[in-house]
């Protein structure tokens, strides 16, 4: 047991003496959160739109105000005709034009049906559909308030409800994905590199000749990275809650528990990788490829799994981060308890157990 602590202490020394490791441990998550949270967000802010109000009545004014206060849009009011719309778009920075026809309020009050023309620059289809969905959600919100007390519900546009994320905030999608990505990357990279480094430098031989049990070596190596990953997780969580307004509705304890399972899973993957590689570079490359791609492609945080061919959806099931992503979203956003996520947790735990056993078995006690 004493040997074990001596070893753990040594591993911590390695980590703290190596600036590159420290940078990777703490710089990476911060960079990822900032990147994904701010730069790569699919939320569109401060988009310039033109509103052309032919109605100039009470209802149109109210709706325009409502659109104008949304932080998605910067509204410019301008009277233009159909011909001019194209030229507005061609100037480039206006992405959407909303046209209120004459008698907007009257139509709404008397026939319960009003028309609103929303014209989007669909040369970028994603932006266009996101912007129109913002408009529809603002509109539908508006009509409910406008007609409050009135029994007749007007039908202008289909009602769109954005459950859990009414503002369509990007962070809710990205943060759990980034958490999975960072935890996996850091753990897999760190363990595989730290073991392969000992192989490269020849110290592994000394350890194997020593009376230290190989299992003790592995566990002692994994422990610092396990704790550092938990600190990492805390950094990510703090940043996403306070910087990106990510909700934290569920139990923190449960979140840390599930994350610990993922970290264990990542540690055993790192161990496996260290068994098949002889150089630190190779270990790094394999870790990056093996973690980054599947997590980005198959966890569902970049590309919705539902849109993938069935074969790929099946493949996605084998990616631990997919399950972790589902669990984290459920805990943080929906605030559910263990009972709602036990299936996913079971799958993740099963994978972890399997990988752990395989990597222990594969860890070579004798060099050749």
């Amino acid at each position: 047991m004493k040997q074990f602590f001596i070893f753990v202490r040594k591993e911590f020394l390695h980590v703290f003496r190596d600036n590159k490791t420290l940078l990777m441990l703490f710089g990476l998550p911060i960079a990822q959160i900032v990147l994904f949270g701010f730069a790569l967000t699919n939320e569109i802010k401060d988009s310039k739109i033109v509103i052309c109000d032919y109605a100039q009545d009470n209802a149109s004014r109210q709706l325009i105000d409502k659109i104008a206060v949304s932080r998605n849009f910067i509204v410019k009011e301008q009277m233009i005709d159909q011909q001019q719309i194209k030229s507005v778009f061609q100037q480039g920075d206006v992405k959407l034009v909303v046209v209120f026809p004459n008698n907007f309020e009257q139509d709404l009050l008397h026939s319960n049906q009003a028309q609103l023309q929303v014209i989007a620059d669909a040369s970028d289809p994603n932006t266009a559909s996101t912007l129109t969905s913002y408009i529809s959600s603002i509109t539908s919100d508006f009509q409910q308030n406008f007609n409050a007390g009135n029994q007749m519900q007007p039908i202008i546009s289909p009602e769109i409800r954005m459950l859990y994320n009414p503002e369509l905030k990007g962070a809710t999608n990205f943060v759990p994905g980034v958490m999975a990505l960072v935890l996996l990357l850091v753990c897999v990279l760190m363990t595989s590199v730290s073991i392969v480094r000992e192989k490269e430098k020849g110290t592994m031989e000394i350890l194997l000749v020593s009376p230290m049990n190989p299992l003790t070596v592995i566990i002692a190596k994994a422990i610092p990275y396990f704790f550092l990953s938990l600190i990492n997780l805390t950094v990510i969580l703090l940043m996403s809650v306070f910087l990106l307004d990510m909700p934290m509705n569920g139990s923190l304890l449960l979140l840390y528990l599930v994350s610990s399972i993922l970290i264990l899973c990542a540690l055993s993957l790192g161990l496996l990788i260290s068994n098949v590689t002889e150089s630190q570079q190779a270990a790094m490359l394999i870790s990056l490829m093996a973690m980054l791609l599947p997590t980005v492609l198959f966890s569902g945080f970049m590309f919705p799994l539902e849109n993938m061919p069935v074969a790929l959806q099946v493949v996605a099931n084998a990616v631990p981060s997919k399950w972790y992503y589902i669990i984290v979203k459920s805990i943080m956003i929906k605030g559910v308890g263990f009972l709602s996520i036990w299936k996913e947790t079971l799958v993740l735990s099963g994978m972890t157990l399997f990988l752990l056993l395989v990597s222990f078995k594969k860890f070579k006690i004798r060099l050749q």
Partner: protein
Amino acid sequence: MDAKNIVISAQDLTKQFGDFTAVDQITFEVYGGEIFGFLGANGAGKTTAMRMLCGLSKPSGGKASVAGFDIYREPEQIKRNIGYMSQKFSLYEDLTIKENIQFFGGIYGLSDRVLKEKSTDLIQQLGLAEHAHTLVGSLPLGWKQKLAFSVAIIHQPSIVFLDEPTGGVDPITRRQFWDLIYEAADQGITIFVTTHYMDEAEYCNRISMMVDGKIAALDSPTALKQEFAAETMDDVFFQLARQAKRKSD
């Protein structure tokens, strides 16, 4: 030196990698307290043989015992009783001298008190007192090797295996390194050392010459020189190595 006290014995020890027989039925004995040189050209199989004795590599056939323990059945006991220094200089470069000593002493289960004494003594002996808190990576190679050797015997093993310990250092440092080896031998530690420096062979009590995975000659340097009618160990080596069919790497 007690010639009766056998600390390493190998019988028909063999290691095959696929079709290639790296070590081919070698049989020899090493006596307690002696400096046993394990010589051979590159690729002759010395490192492989040594690794089998240390429990780093599983033999394909034959029998061997180290410090009285069987290499198949009691590898854990063997590990407790041997020290090992590999070709690659092997201490942690990002730890200080003191931290390295404490780590390696610690994993051999030395108590804190013994460890403290030992590390102070050792640092004194090597004349590294003012460098105790220097990172090992910044030391010159000769110092690192001396330190690595001292660390390899910090737990007072009965045998220490040295795998080409003096590769790449200048003759003076090599001489100093051998002084350390003699000191250890005086304390009763058996030294099993592989080398391809023939001047170092002269320092050994007995040497074995490996050619193509087999032991071609085994005796004291003086006896070997007589047997091959050679002036120096270099000549002995050339005569034997010329028989080799295997290409060195």
